[in-house]
């Protein structure tokens, strides 16, 4: 059985469709969405619709900071561009979409895996897991063999034995990595809708339960259409430009 893990879609319908098609072609049967379904992009309703349909069939979905912000609050800890996008997103969401976001849990634990947007350690703080120490705290709090997270918009794999400091490993897209369950693993799967590592291809990860491997992927998608929709919606120009540069 294979399942695909997506994070940080950020209302980018073109990227989401490309990743879903890519994962289906590789035999994905189940899905997990690690939050930030909305914010930045021009298709919040269409993206929520796809995710809600899959959630109804059993997909895991957790809450991200942009999903939380799209519901209410002053967004004081966000930059102006992000805040503008959130206010615009609020104007687009109907009751159905708001209800769906409202019900999202912060963390989901299922079998030997935890799913969280930022860090399993105080998930409401939206910590960026950007080093081994923070990865260790996240793994400690999750206390499952596998932890899947997003939020940092680039792909990396942390692993450790027992309680030692985790090791960081930079995965090569498309190469399956054996993930044996006598170690603990934290996969930061990257962003579907707004990659920020200088590569504009969408990111996601695919887990193969039978082979016990994890593969990180980069999927090229039609970023021009996504960027044009952002401009047409009157969202900040910078949000359109960064889809092309991947920064």
């Amino acid at each position, binding site marked *: 059985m294979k399942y695909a893990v997506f994070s940080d879609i950020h209302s980018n319908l073109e990227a989401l469709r490309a990743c879903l098609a890519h994962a289906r072609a590789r035999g994905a049967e189940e899905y997990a969405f690690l939050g930030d379904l909305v914010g930045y992009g021009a298709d919040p309703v269409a993206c929520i619709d796809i995710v809600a349909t899959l959630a109804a069939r059993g997909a895991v979905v957790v809450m991200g900071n942009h999903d939380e912000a799209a519901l209410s609050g002053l967004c004081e800890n966000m930059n102006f561009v992000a805040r503008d996008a959130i206010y615009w997103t609020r104007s687009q969401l109907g009751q159905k979409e708001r209800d769906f976001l409202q019900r999202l849990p912060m963390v989901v634990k299922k079998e030997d895996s935890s799913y969280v947007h930022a860090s399993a350690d105080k998930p409401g703080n939206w910590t960026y897991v950007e080093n081994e120490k923070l990865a260790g705290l996240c793994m400690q709090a999750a206390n499952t063999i596998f932890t899947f997270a997003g939020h940092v918009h680039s792909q990396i794999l942390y692993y450790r034995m027992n309680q030692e400091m985790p090791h960081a490993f930079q995965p090569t897209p498309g190469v399956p*990595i*054996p993930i044996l369950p006598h170690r603990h693993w934290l996969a930061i799967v990257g962003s579907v809708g707004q990659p920020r590592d200088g590569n504009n291809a969408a990111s996601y990860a695919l887990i193969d339960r039978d082979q016990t491997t994890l593969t990180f992927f980069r999927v090229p998608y039609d970023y021009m259409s996504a960027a044009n929709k952002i401009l047409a919606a009157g969202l900040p120009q910078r949000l359109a430009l960064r889809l092309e540069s991947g920064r």
Partner: protein
Amino acid sequence: MENLFALKPGEEIGGFRILEKIHEGGMAAIYRVSRPDIDLPLIMKIPKLAFGSHPACYVGFEVEQMILATLSGPHVPRFIAKGDMETSPYIVMEYIGGPSLHDFVNRSPAAVPEIARLVSALAAAVHDLHRQNVVHLDIKPANVLYRPTGEAVLIDFGLARHAYLPDLVEEEFHMPVGTAAYISPEQVVGRRCDPRSDIFAIGVILYQLSTGCLPFGSPTHIRGFRKRLYRDPVPPRSIKPDLPEWLQEIILHCLEVRASDRYATAAQVACDLSHPDHVSITSRGTRLKQAGCIDLIRRRWEALWPESEPCPAPSAHLAIAPHIMVALDTTHIAEDLFQALRDAVRRVVATEAHCRITCVTILEPSILTEEDNNHQFANSLYTQRLVELRHWAKPLALPGEKVRYHVLEATDPAAALLEYARANHVDQIIMGARGCSTLRRILGSVSSKVAAEAPCSVTVVRVPRAP
């Protein structure tokens, strides 16, 4: 966990029937096993993972499980299955009967043709491993077995590194790991990513087979390891004066302290061992003394700051050191085609800094008539072809160590070119198209057969003409 060390013949584990225990060492036990649906002799390797056992067993076993499963081809034992690390850790793989290179080393010094045959096969196996992005990092005689066909098989991937998978060994030890006699200078300073480390180990094995001695002894302390960062070995010919210069040239070229001074690829080592007459001999091949004290002081100084250049994946490393074969038909004079071929070669040489060029032509024995089919005449024709090859290549002004010339005697040119490409790890064939269509209709196209069947890329060069 069951006691996997006391398995009795007839017991079953993971669907495999235990036949007999063939080895029990400090790290692992090995059983012959069988499964009805697999028609291959098999072994099951079971690590000693008891409480308090050395972490090397654990990590080494995990690394071997991980890496062996990614490898394929005749130069590794075929991977069959693995057991769960928690409950029944084992690997099942193809059984390779041997002999082991260790058996030959025990009887060294060996005869020169035997050394060339054994180590050329070993270098071919190492090249195939590098092509698959794995550096072995523990190449030693005990880890090299031979199939009945003469092909070498590498075993024991416990210290190996895959460029695209986590390096569990490095994280476990934080100190150099390897076998004292064979470890490369860069491994001593903790660099575990360079495919040329395996070439250094090949050099140690060549030295050992040629002289019966180890070039750096078998030190037991880190200071003893470090000595190879500046001290070059005693030249083999001063131990064994009848050793040919070409062999010493190859040995010392493999054993250069700086990885960038060694052969760029193991395929080049294999090629030189198979064609000793092509080896260009430098001072490496002729010297009878170790470096003097000025060199030694300089190297000790340099050893304080080891190279720390970035580490490309082995396959990327091989990509800039391709073996290019240029197939020429020097009997059909076509100056414009010769020029087009030279242009094609020039483009490769300009972009790939470490490439090697072999210029090949065919000598068809059928053109010798009955009366002049004598040795002398055949020899002069052979020489004539060589001269023609060199004449063709002259305008390219290629440095001597980059280019080789070879005349193949064969009646079927395409088959001979394909065979040469296969045996010599050729990465790209450059050849001309037969221009004249009548000729092609009669003789058939050599280039189309080569292009269809070659184990590598083929560039067919044609002189541009008006449409």
